[in-house]
């Protein structure tokens, strides 16, 4: 057997992907259904000379990786809903201070403690707006293990490119399921390294003065340049400021550096869209059932297609509008009360033709669940 071929859980594969991407610092706190990530990191990191910390809670975990990122390391933490809620303030800090990091949220069912061992996709809006204030964020997801690998590596690359936290919104099914996987050879997926300043020692370095292309070269803590990092609105020195012009410029920079690059950040997969009359839009593990329905109906000659979103935020509005332009019906398939549905309705030409096929009970959405909705839309009754 090829030694790169393995049969493992999505959570474990996410760890391998992070290591492939260059991660060498991790801090976390156990929580179902993400715990396997923490446990594998504890074992794998010291093997490669990396550092692992189990902190006293999720707040401390995110703060610790932000600190480690500042010294020049690629960092990650992983959690599930309750822990993700605790992380929101520090997440905003990383956005404001422009510190790259990757946060995995392996979603469970329900709100609050919910159903820890069951599946859900209810954190889509929290990932977008969970931390306070105007900001932009990158949120990615995947429906199978091989994609978990690619998207995880991508997440690190995007975090480094845009100097921002990137959220990997996986779910219990993808996290726990075992699939055959293939580990790409070193160098097969390109890696992005942080843009470091070329300003020489002794010359003034402006840590928060973006280049014209919006990118912000960094100087690692401990290196030649000493500067201030703060979560307050700050000037180009990183010093707190309440000047309205500076505040305006900073918010615009933080939002624009991501939203102006929505096309570059958008990852998606499409199946049979060219002539599709009915388009399913789905993501994460729900997209597995959606694909099953599409392939089944295609084999019977029906014109169904699937748009699988892998970037949820910034939401690829123009992509969705374009792909759905000729569709008679659009059905969003997700395991929540309609969190991506809202974004789809905003951008398609005929929002009244957008429907929801969902589950909110912690049970994995099946092809039958989707078929039932399709029959209702087609006026056939269930």
């Amino acid at each position: 057997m090829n030694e790169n071929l393995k049969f493992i859980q999505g959570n474990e594969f996410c760890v391998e992907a992070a290591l492939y991407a260059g991660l060498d610092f991790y801090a976390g706190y156990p929580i179902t259904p993400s715990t396997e990530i923490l446990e594998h990191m504890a074992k794998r990191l010291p093997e490669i000379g990396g550092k692992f910390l189990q902190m006293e809670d999720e707040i401390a975990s995110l703060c610790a990786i932000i600190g480690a990122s500042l010294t020049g390391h690629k960092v990650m933490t992983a959690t599930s809903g309750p822990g993700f809620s605790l992380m929101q303030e520090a997440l905003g800090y990383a956005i404001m201070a422009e510190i790259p990091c990757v946060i995995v949220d392996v979603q469970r069912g329900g709100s609050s403690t919910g159903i820890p061992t069951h599946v859900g996709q209810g954190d889509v809006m929290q990932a977008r707006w969970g931390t306070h204030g105007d900001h932009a964020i990158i949120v990615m997801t995947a429906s199978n293990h091989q994609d978990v690998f690619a998207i995880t590596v991508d997440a690190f690359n995007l975090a480094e490119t845009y100097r921002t936290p990137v959220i990997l919104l996986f779910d219990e099914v993808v996290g726990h399921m075992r699939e055959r996987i293939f580990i790409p050879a070193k160098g097969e997926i390109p890696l992005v390294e942080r843009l470091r300043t070329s300003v020489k020692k002794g010359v003034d370095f402006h840590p928060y003065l973006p280049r014209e292309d919006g990118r912000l070269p960094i100087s690692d803590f401990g290196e030649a340049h000493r500067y201030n990092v703060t979560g307050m609105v700050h000037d180009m020195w990183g010093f707190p400021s309440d000047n309205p012009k500076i505040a305006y410029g900073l918010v615009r920079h933080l939002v624009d550096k991501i939203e102006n690059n929505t096309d570059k950040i958008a990852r998606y997969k499409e199946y049979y869209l060219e002539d599709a009359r009915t388009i399913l839009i789905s993501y994460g593990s729900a997209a597995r059932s959606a694909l099953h329905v599409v392939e089944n109906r295609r084999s019977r000659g029906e014109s169904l297609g699937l748009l699988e979103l892998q970037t949820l935020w910034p939401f690829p509005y123009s992509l969705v509008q374009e792909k759905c332009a000729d569709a008679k019906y659009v059905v969003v398939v997700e395991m929540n009360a309609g969190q991506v549905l809202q974004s789809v309705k905003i951008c398609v030409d005929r929002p009244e033709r957008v429907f929801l096929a969902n589950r909110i009970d912690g049970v994995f959405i099946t092809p039958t669940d989707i078929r039932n909705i399709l029959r209702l839309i087609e006026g056939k009754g269930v």
Partner: protein
Amino acid sequence: MAIKDYIRERFFPHIWCPGCGHGMVLNGLLRAIEKIGLDKNEIVMVSGIGCSARISGYVDFHTLHSIHGRALSFATGIKMSRPELKLIVPMGDGDALAIGGNHFIHAARRNMDMTAIIINNRIYGMTGGQHSPLSGYGTMSATSPYSNIDNDFDVVELSVAAGASFVGRTTTYHTKQMTDILGQAIIHKGFSVVEIMSQCPTYFGRKNRLGSAIDMLEGFRKNTTPIGSKAKQKDPDLIERGIFVRKKMPEYCDEYDKIIKRAMKGN
């Protein structure tokens, strides 16, 4: 190096009220650093949020002004990822022991090499004078207008119980002792805690009719005594100053290096 070389003059004047103890702590700390002869480039100062936390903006080190209560968590990530750096973490009493209390005891337990400075002014200065966990029974504040019924705790006892390997206490009146203890805390290998009793004349002083900053400093002189002094035997209410604990204990980053060696060998 002169003290002023440790300062970012560009960011002055500072935001503190006249007579505030935070500037005195900054002064004592810089003297300690100068005495030890640390290079500016090897120091990282991490602070949270509060009047006290603003210290980090004024010093020419690598500085991280983080979020309320979590300074030690950020510092833990920095130290662990780059152990050759010296971590100094000034915190207000609310920052360190209310919202940050959990991080504080766990940082002490872990014994990672860093210096936590708790500037205890017994009040939330930045938000306008609400009681803190250190205000103490019977004190007055904006949120205890009829007198405070919250008990305080002893920072030194808490730190010792949590496992800090260096614990000291001094006051803003005792500037020489402050510099001395801070210096020893920074040199100490492990998690060191220095409590500095300090004055917030604007809120704690005014609400509790303690007079001017100078009167409050005078209070520190009168109400404290060196550890184990005769005065303490006569008057048990006196608060002791000095170094309470200094012990050699395995340091966290060193211990983790051993884990790396084991993991790399495959056992």
